[in-house]
Each structure stands twice: as C-alpha cells, then as structure tokens.
C-alpha cells in the first residue's frame, strides 16, 4: 500500500510575518520504491521530513496536510503521526556524527529501539537481534561494535548504525534526510547501497531527501523537485532526466551535465549555485510562479498567474507546474 502525503503546508513563527517554508506539497510513494526529493538548501526539504515525523521545532505550525500510511489516514495538523515513530515511521539523519548519543554504546542504542519495536523479547534476544542488524548493514565485527561508543566509529560506520536502527524498526515509510551529505564521497555509494538493500528487504517506501540530482538519478525510482517550499515537478526519475517538464528541472539537469562529474559525486558539489539568483523571500506572499525571478523562460503572465500541475505522460505520473509547458 502506498504512502501518500496530501497538501502539506508548514509555517515557522518568529519575529515579523510567518515564514511559509512548505506550501501545499503532495506526493505518493509506492511500497518498495524510493522517491528522491530534491531542492536547494532552504527549499523546505527537512521541514517536509520532520513534519511527517511530527518532530518539527516548537515554532513550526503545520497549517494543512494529512498522510496515508498503512491504509490509514493521519491528520498532520494534529501531530497524529507521532505514535507511528518507530512503529511504521523511521528516519536516517544528515549528520551521523551527531545523531548518536556519545555516552551510550552502539548496543544500547539498538536495544533501546528494540524496547519500542519488540517489547516482548528479553534482553539477550534483543542483543542478538541488534548484532544481526549490524551484520546486515555490513558493519565488520558486529559483536565488538555493540560495546563500542559512537566516537570509536567513523562517520560512515555510524550512519550504518542508524540504518541498522531503521532496519530493526521495520518501517512502512523510511525517511532519509541527506544521509550522505556529511560523509566522505568515498562512503556515499556504500551507504546508499545499504539504504536500497533495506528498502528491498522490507519492501517499504523510502523518501530520500537530497540536494544532489546525481544521487536521485542513480538510486531513485521517482523524483520530486521542491523549490521555495513548492513542488515544481514530479514523476519517474528517468522520465524527468530525459524530458524535464519544468524550466527549473531543466536548468538543474543542464548544470549536472555541464559539470560532467561521475554520477555519484555531485552530492558534495552544489549545482544549484550555477543557476543565477536566489530563493525568493518565504515570508512574502507569492503571486504567480515562485520560480519567475530566476526563470529564463518567464513571461509577464508568470508574475500573476499561479501555475497548476500539467500532466506530461499518459498515466498521469509525470507532471510539472509551469505556464509555458507545450508553448514554444
């Protein structure tokens, strides 16, 4: 059963007007598939992730949105998914150096997760399950790792520990928020392989958040392009790569080609910088297309008319929000 997010909007309160970080975002992830959510820094990717987990900062308000998961519907504005944490939802974080408690062993972390997901098992059995999970994510010498502390492991190894936590939680939806951004490029491929292996073993839906198009085109089935809190294009990764419907996606993919790096490397490079201009002010009301200020195809109408999604394939899986689709 697919995981579906509908009409998610998130505001941040602070001094001055509210910051509309995410506006009316919807997407669907079928089981066993990985959706790559791409966008430059500040486009609202992490906000989407934490909104689904019910782990947004105190000054955030989810103003609309619900999520269908496991055949049931949850109202995100009421933080209804909080009880699903560890029981259907799991997450992998951006900075593995910070995401484990420095004064507890790897084993303590994993068995704590098992208290939540396998409350009936005894301590010995939990330890065995933890060791098994570490072996599954290909951490060498798993038994010894259980008694080691996070600082004794490298960044890549720590990220595997978090992946092992996700593996134990057996989620329906796994969210990975820039899981390789803080890591060395050389371990990026191996960490991504473990995430894919986890997806295949559990047949779960995966939301991969990244600012690297290379990562998406290499590992993801589907792709969604987020810009200034709005979804601009979504569809099968291959289809977007071949025939981008939105000028923003096209510019991104052009940069990718122009830079001409091996597919998995640009995770470190930030191709968004190549496009001139900056993200619009998220506190100001949006009129027309959010991308208008930076768009090379913009016309007068773009500043006033809000584009709606245009279907780009027969099945209705690929769509983009641009007024000038089909207009040459």
């Amino acid at each position, binding site marked *: 059963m697919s995981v579906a997010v509908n009409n998610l909007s998130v505001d941040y309160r602070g001094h001055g007007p509210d910051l509309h970080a995410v506006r009316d975002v919807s997407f669907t992830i079928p089981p066993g598939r990985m959706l790559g959510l791409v966008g430059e820094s500040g486009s609202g990717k992490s906000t989407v992730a934490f909104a689904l987990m019910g782990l947004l900062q105190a000054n955030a308000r989810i103003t609309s949105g619900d999520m269908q998961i496991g055949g049931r519907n949850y109202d995100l504005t009421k933080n209804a998914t909080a009880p699903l944490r560890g029981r259907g939802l799991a997450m992998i974080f951006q900075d593995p150096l910070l*995401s484990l408690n*420095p004064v507890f062993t790897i084993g303590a972390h994993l068995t704590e997760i098992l208290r939540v997901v396998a409350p009936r098992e005894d301590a010995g059995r939990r330890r065995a399950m933890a060791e098994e999970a570490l072996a599954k994510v290909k951490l060498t010498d798993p038994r010894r790792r259980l008694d080691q*502390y996070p600082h004794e492991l490298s960044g890549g190894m720590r990220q595997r520990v978090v992946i092992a936590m996700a593996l134990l939680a057996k989620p329906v939806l796994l969210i990975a928020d820039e899981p390789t951004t803080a890591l060395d490029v050389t371990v990026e491929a191996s960490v991504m392989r473990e995430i894919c292996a986890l997806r295949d073993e559990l047949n779960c839906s995966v939301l991969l958040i990244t600012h690297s198009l290379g990562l998406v085109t290499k590992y993801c089935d589907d792709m969604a392009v987020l810009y200034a809190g709005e979804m601009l294009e979504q569809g099968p990764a291959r289809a977007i790569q071949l025939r981008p419907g939105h000028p923003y996606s096209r510019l991104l993919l052009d940069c990718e080609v122009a830079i001409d790096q091996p597919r998995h490397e640009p995770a470190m490079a930030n191709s968004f910088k190549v496009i001139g201009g900056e993200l619009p002010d998220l506190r100001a009301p949006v009129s027309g297309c959010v991308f208008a200020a930076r768009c090379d195809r913009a016309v007068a109408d773009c500043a006033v008319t809000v584009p709606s999604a245009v279907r780009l394939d027969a099945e209705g899986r690929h769509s983009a929000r641009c007024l000038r689709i089909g207009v040459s």
Partner: protein
Amino acid sequence: MAFLLRRAQAALFTIACVMLMLFMLVRSVPGDMASIMLGPRATPELRARIVAEMGLDQNIFVQLWLFLTRVVRGDFGEDIISRRPIIDIVAEVLPNTLILAGTALFLSLVFGILLGLIAAKSRGSWADSLLGLLSVAFVSTPSLVVSIVLLLLFSRALHWFPVAGVGDSGDMLDQLAHLVLPATALALGWIGYIARLVRAALLETLTEHHIRTLRAYGVPEWRIAGIYALRLALVPLVSILGIGLGDLIGSAVFAELIFARPGIGSLIFNSIAVRNYPVVQAAVLIIILIYILANLAVDLINSRLDPRIARAMREGRQA
C-alpha cells in the same frame, strides 16, 4: 591504569605540599612553641614532653623528618592534654563528620537532580518558575543562617527534632533524628545549585541531535530525559562534586558548632581555641586527604559516565 598512576602521583604531591605547609605554619608562630601551646597549663614536665615529642630542641630539618616519617605511619603523636594518641581522637569524631557530609551530599544529589529534571521538563510553566525562585533562594542563603533558622524553628519552637548532639550510639532512629536538621542545612544550597545546573544541562542536551534520533524511533520521553539526556547532563555535575564535598565538609564545621555535634569541625575549632596544634594538624590533614580522594573518585566516575573523557585521560589530554 596509567592514568590512575598519574593521578596518584599528583595526589601524593599535593599531600606532601600540604604536610609541609602544616609543618611550617605551626612552626611559624612567633615565640616559644611549647609555651604557646601550653599557655597557662605550662608546667616544666609538660614543656619538656612537648619539646621532646616534637623535637623542638633539634634542627628544623630533623624536626621535619621526624614529623614526616611519623605522619606517613599514621602517627601524629600523643595529645599532651589527654595523653591519648591524636589519631584516635581524630578517628573517633571523623565518622560523625563523614556521615553528616555524606548525608548532605546524598540529599543534594537526590533532590537537586529530581528538581532539575522536573524544572527542565516543565520549562516555562509556573512549576519551573517556582523551582527557579526556590533554587536561587537556597543558593543565596548561607548554610550558617539556614542552620540557625532550622534550629530555632524545628527544634526550639516546634520540638520536632532534637537540639544537640549526634544521638545515642546504639539508636539508629535517634541518630537519624539528630542528622536531619544539620544535613538539610548543609544540603539546601547545593540542592538549589544542582537543580539549576541539571536543568540547564538537560535543556541543552534535549535539543541535541541524538535526542531527536531517539524520538524518531518512538523511545518514550521519560526514558529520553531520565536516562539518555540525564547521563550527559550528569557529567558537569559530577565534575563539581569534588569541590562540593570539600565545601560540605567546610560548612560542616559551622553546622557542628551550631548543632553541638562532635566532629572534625568542632574538633578543629576547639583545638584552635586551646592552641592544641598537633590535633589541628592531624585533623586538617585528614580533611585534605578526604578531599583529594573525593576528587580522584570524581574523575573515575566521570570516565565511567563519559567514555570520551576516559579516552582523553588515557591519552593524557586535559579532560
């Protein structure tokens, strides 16, 4: 182990310095030592005994050597007044002080951590504000004042607790009843201080990424705060406990005087009053020894709490 050795060396060095200081302090009092110590009690025999015992008629280095070699063997000489070994006099009252300071420390930790935890978890609420106010009041009232207030209120006026002494040696309950007020007086300031410290450390820790990780996997909030965040928050707390114990023993001197409890504090006070320097020397040295041991224990506990400290210590870095 190498780290332990290094710490032991440092401790030995400190002790050596303290002994030297004590030795010199006593001897730096101008005038004739024996007459100063004996005052009006001075008789020719007593004088002769002191001079012989402390080697006062000999060269200063011989005196130092005599002093050091005796102290190392735990021999502080014989008390001129009671003619009992000084070490016995100290050992007799030491447990009272240790029990008092230990109880105060225990109270400080239990209530300080508990109140800190409550304040952090109810941050911004009226409970938090109230605890904040109380803590500051506790911290800023000297234990001397608290002692007197408690004594007047609960012993003199309400007769809930006994006024003086340590209680019957065979009667646990009686001893406990005698302990309540002085231990509370000593602990109150530290309860306030620890509550503030734990609250601040917890609030900081609770925003860290690894806490979010646990939340993301559905770990209950009370386990996150009470186990995972608290353990990290305890590291700065344990670091100050060495100083804390020193402070507690220091304030115990006053509490012992006010509540008329026999203990190291009252022993030092009374011995200074009659210029019985050898007893002062022994008592001070014992206190310093306890202080050093406490700090050693603190380092060990911290290295158990935080493996990164253990590693830093092994590698000889400043933890």
